[in-house]
């Protein structure tokens, strides 16, 4: 195995992991605060992705597509939180069923509106495209771009959670909801903002992801599955955990497919299984 090939595989794993992190970060953020397994997260991915595809096709601007995708997902998130989730707050089963229902409805709407054929954000249009070539080494720029964007978003989330006032409020809410609201924090409003932020992150993931992986109406469920696996490995509610879990799974996936192709089916789920057996709270999760 040559050095060039090895480096390519390393970057393949990291860039796929980066996309996984983008998808999982919003999911874990919402879970950490609200204790909701928001299965509609996959629907936010779809909304962001399809609107980005349409916008980029119409305006030839990748960045506008990214913006529209993120905003649209955030708006749908706001509607879901204010209009529906609020009514079943604190009841776990209705919350899960409601969000999975929303996922199905949106996936079928997407099938109805856009059809089932594969769609994607066309390369170029202001986003990095083509290949980076250094001697023998070739690597797609878009994948490097995904790694870069994810680093920026990940660091921003981490810093905001740790150092900003909003981050402090969110952390207070995570630790003790009742005490936080007793201190005069409007916890309902915090819930809404975090939920909207999570949806926007899924929308961004959708817009960026659809430049890498073609979309179909079932992409939402696929991506939701990835998000859940990453979050289970990393630890529910932990941003650091999501980052480590995502890159870990990306790398395992890339190298297993080359070294042990017969295990290609288990690259995503085997790490999850091992974590569930030996450290059920996840690598960075707190024991319940």
């Amino acid at each position: 195995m040559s050095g060039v090939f090895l480096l390519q595989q390393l970057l393949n794993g990291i860039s796929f992991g980066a996309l996984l992190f983008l998808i999982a970060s919003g999911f874990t953020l919402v879970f950490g605060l609200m204790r909701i397994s928001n299965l509609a997260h996959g629907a936010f991915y779809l909304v962001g992705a399809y609107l980005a595809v349409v916008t980029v096709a119409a305006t030839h601007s990748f960045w506008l597509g990214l913006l529209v995708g993120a905003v649209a997902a955030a708006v749908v998130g706001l509607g879901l939180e204010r209009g529906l989730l609020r009514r079943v707050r604190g009841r776990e089963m209705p919350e899960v069923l409601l969000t999975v229902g929303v996922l199905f409805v949106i996936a079928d709407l997407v099938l109805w509106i856009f059809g089932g054929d594969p769609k994607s954000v066309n390369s170029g249009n202001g986003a990095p495209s083509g290949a980076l070539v250094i001697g023998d080494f070739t690597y797609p720029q878009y994948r490097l771009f995904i790694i870069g964007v994810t680093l920026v978003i990940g660091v921003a989330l981490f810093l905001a959670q740790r150092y900003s006032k909003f981050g402090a409020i969110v952390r207070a809410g995570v630790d003790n909801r009742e005490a936080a609201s007793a201190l005069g924090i409007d916890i309902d409003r915090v819930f809404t903002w975090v939920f909207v932020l999570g949806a926007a992150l899924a929308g961004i993931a959708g817009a960026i992801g659809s430049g890498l992986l073609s979309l179909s109406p079932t992409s939402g469920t696929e991506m939701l599955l990835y998000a859940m696996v990453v979050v289970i490995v990393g630890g529910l509610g932990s941003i650091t955990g999501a980052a480590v879990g995502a890159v870990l799974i990306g790398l395992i996936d890339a190298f297993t497919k080359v070294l042990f192709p017969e295990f290609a089916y288990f690259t995503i789920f085997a790490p999850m299984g091992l974590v569930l057996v030996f450290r059920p709270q996840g690598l960075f999760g707190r024991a319940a």
Partner: protein
Amino acid sequence: MIRKISAAAGVTLAAALVLTACAPSSGLSGGGEATDGPADTGQTFKIGVLAPMTSWAGAIGVDMQQGWDMFLADQGQEIGSFKIETVWEDTASDPDTALTKARKLVQEDHVDLVIGPVLASEGLVVGDYLTQAGVVNLAMTAADDLTQRLASPMVIRTGSFTASQMSFPVGDWASKQGYKTAATICVDYAFGWESCGGFVSAFTAAGGTVTNQLWYPGDASDLSSYVSQLGSLDVDVIFVGSAGGTDSSNFFRTASDFGLLTKTPIVSNCCTTDQAILEDVGDIALGQISGSFYAEGNDDPVVAGFVEQYESKFGVLPSLYSFAVYSTGQMVYDVLGKASGKPTGQALADAIRGVDLGSTIIGSGSLDEYGNPVGPVFIRQVVKRADGKLVNAVIETYDDVSQFWTFDPKAYLANPPFSQEFQQQ
């Protein structure tokens, strides 16, 4: 509990009323009151169609409906002494649902034949059931064994060729281009094994060597690891056998990003350069080679006429499925047009087996004793039409391709079906 039972009884009663209410009306249309058709001697011929209209393969169902609509508009709702009635059922892209709907078509709708289903997973279950029920099944799946080791007298594959049958000519063609070594990448389930098996068998029979075979899981979304691997190989040609969905889009985009498309020539199975994929990936697919029994860019006047008419009617190019349901309709009409009494069961199956494919848009050929078409497979190349649309044009035609290629059917059937382990006849 009692309330539940009485509710169920109510529903049954209501259903019975609806049924009896319907029965006389369909009887009347045969009794002479409906006189708008010239050849109305009152026989209704009921066709059930099983198509995926929702879930992941939902786009196929839409294509089939449009193809069938156009067929009925072209050929009329009446043929010979029969009035055609079509009953559509959605399989939801799921084998269990497909079987349930097949039962419904037979037991409640009393259809005379069933067209479909399309998905390989659905095809074998439904074919098995319809054989037991004695109803003719005009299958549209590519699963090899449906007309090989599991062939049934009632099942005829009118709406597809086998997966390997469409790849044999690609292997032969690749060898004729002077390629000596090949690597393959195929999706890791029956359709991929069969697509790859066809290529490998014909390529090696023609003197080539296959050095590497990669298999990717059907649910793999990121194919970069595989593309990097292919890029590190030193081979003359790469064969791609994708499922024809997001996997082939992802393959082309990744292969283009990694510079593979310009490094090594690529040839592929029927579905990797499907119209829907070309629509998605755009110009990077230009020049790509594949093999199929349908080419939307075929300049044969019959096919070109079909494509033009479809395009002006629906605003999109006809897919393989629109084409296949249309040609299936032609075979049924060919039989019904000549029939005096209403053919059913085995007699109908035998009559359909006798149809000359030259009378359909498939162009030429016949059905073999196993119920599979022996007909033309086109080597296609993606070109840009005058209006800028990408289409698969025909660059070479292999006529009378059999599902056994040039191999002896008996020896072929004695071998196991294609799998990761068994690739070379």
